[in-house]
């Protein structure tokens, strides 16, 4: 990779933008936002680990997000200098930009953050567990189901592995299944 690692001001931009996209409680019904997961460091490592062209794209995305207040709000500052609510406004405008490259690169930036945010096992479980919550257009707190009412089906690796003892067959054994392929036909 030919590009230098992110400078400290770039790390600050990335941090500010990601904290706005995946905020901390109480602006987030999940138990934590992305801040605790050091998203800027993650982004830096991502850039260091991908081919040069992709690294360039990620870097450009960051600069677009960082300098967006100039052309979105006509304010002479970077994203890091805005309040969290203003950052969200700027990011939403970028995601809906009529300039294809701008909205695509911003979407890419958001997507990279998602990779980091959802890496946390407990948080994944929180996201995927159904809630007795009102729809997003309704306001009000998100209510967890009463104990025992929700059938938690997040990945329990040990359990999955234990129940996969059918897989313990030796590598050179072939299973007995003979499924005829008929394939659904067109109508």
């Amino acid at each position, binding site marked *: 990779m030919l590009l230098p690692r992110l400078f400290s001001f770039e790390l600050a931009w990335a941090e500010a933008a990601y904290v706005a*996209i*995946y*905020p901390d409680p109480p*602006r*987030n*019904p*999940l138990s934590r936002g992305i801040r605790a997961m050091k998203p800027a460091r993650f982004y830096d490592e991502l850039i260091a680990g*991908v*081919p040069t062209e992709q690294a360039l794209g990620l870097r450009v995305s960051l600069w677009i997000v960082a300098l967006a207040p100039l052309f979105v709000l006509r304010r002479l500052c970077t994203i890091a200098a805005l309040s*969290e*609510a203003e*950052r*969200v406004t700027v990011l*939403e405008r970028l*995601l*809906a930009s009529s300039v*294809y490259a701008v909205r695509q690169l911003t*979407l890419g930036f*958001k*997507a990279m953050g*998602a*990779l980091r*945010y*959802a*890496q946390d*096992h407990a*948080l*994944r479980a929180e*996201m*995927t567990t*159904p*809630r007795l*919550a009102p*729809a*997003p*257009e309704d306001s009000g707190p998100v209510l967890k189901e009463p104990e025992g009412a929700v059938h938690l*089906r*997040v*990945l329990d690796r*040990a359990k*999955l592995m*234990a*129940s*996969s*003892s059918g*897989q*313990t*067959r*030796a*590598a*050179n054994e*072939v299973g007995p*299944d*003979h*499924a005829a*392929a008929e*394939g659904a*036909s*067109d*109508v």
Partner: protein
Amino acid sequence: MSDVRFPDDDMPAGAVVDGEAVTRAVDDAFDFVVVGSGAAGASAAYVLAEAGFSVGIVEEGPWLKTRDITEDVHTAFSKYTRESGMQVLRGRSFVPMIQGRCVGGSTLINSAIAWRIPEDVVDDWGARFGLGDSINMRELDPHFDALERDLSVRPVADDALGENNAMFLAMANKRGISASRMRRYDRGCKGSGMCLSACPTAAKQGMSVTYVPWALARHGARIFTSARVERVEIRGHRAVAVVAKSASGHPIVLRARRGVFVAASTVQTPNLLRRSGVRSPALGKHFQAHPGLAVGGMFKRSIEMSFGATQGAESIHYRKSERFKLETISFPPDIAAARIPGAGPELVERLARLGHVASWAAQIRARAEGTVGEGWSGADRVKYTLGEDDIRATRKAVALLARMMFDAGAQEVWPGIFGVPSVLRSVDQVKLVDEGPLDPRAYAFIATHLFGAARMGVDPRTSVVDADFRVHGVDDLWVVDSSVFPTNLGVNPQHSIMAMSRLAAARVAERAKGLRAA
């Protein structure tokens, strides 16, 4: 947990040469050398090894063993996909293109859907490309049968169906659209919905837990992992060796006494042939794709997309008439978060309710053609732009999925089309999708089903390989991945790729056996 053994755990000594650990030049010889260990390469290698030939497989990527699989997408994609999952098709829009770069190739991270090549496609290949005598259902069916036996193809079981899939079937049924459970390579799917970041239980019968270990353990094949093939050495119109470089930087030369099978995939194969000196006017041309895009919906009730086969239900009702196939797809949070509209509180509010989200998709049987070449840094470059009629088909598919979601009681539907509200709140709004833009940049496609660019045909001026998979004008060099497919299938391609590859390998093995006997 430690007493559970997976099929990829125990390989015979010396069967795996890890290119990251190679400390000096390697020179070896086999009857056949196979480039790539994905759907095509693993199938061919297994058939050749089973027929009693010595086989060396060369794979650019590493081997992710089942016991090392983690649930997050980032780990899988950053280490085991090409360009960390950030490859794109370039044209008027940038379409993400995902390919595995690991033992098993894309089968490590795919959804294991098995579809026999539709008969009308084979007929079309016969009529338009003169392949009828060589590629027909009579020739292919025994290979499909063998694959289905070996890889345990079966419909998704009740206990792995999940609500995302079940609801799709019910809604299709309600509208009179024929739909069915997916048939998949499945030996005891637990419905973890994790196919896209690799199966943690080896239930998914991908190549890294089936044909590759079987070829090694039962039939004495060897695999060189983390070793990129730079070229096939062609001497006097005959392929004689494969020249690779290990990840640790050492040359690996594998001499091929009887020939070389190239199965590096639609995108990498044409460039490898070019680097090897193959000069065909058709090389790199006629690239096609079967791009997909997803529609999300939020429900009041629980959907729990994280439980159920990742892709468990489908409909080919409109494959011929409208050129799209409908499927379910459960996205893990890492991918869903990028597709959910908004940023900040609005986004996380929806993320917190992911358990109430359903996700369905359409695969478009696109007519557009592109080209495969190399960029300034030697990286693969695919130029491709979807045509207006492809976008019309897309719009219809998205609108239909949105209507089906509202039929099912969705509170909001996310069509993912720029120029249409990102959140639709009533079925009346779906007409905005019907009238959506015809610009490909407005749609969030992803490409995983790829075809062409080393097309099969009888005329060397318009095709790269002949009807026996042999590169025109070069002996003992066969291409067996979907780069040889003359057209888009309109269905998921892995099964057809494997059947075609098996057919090629079986023919070559037969001939070689005849020669050996003589």
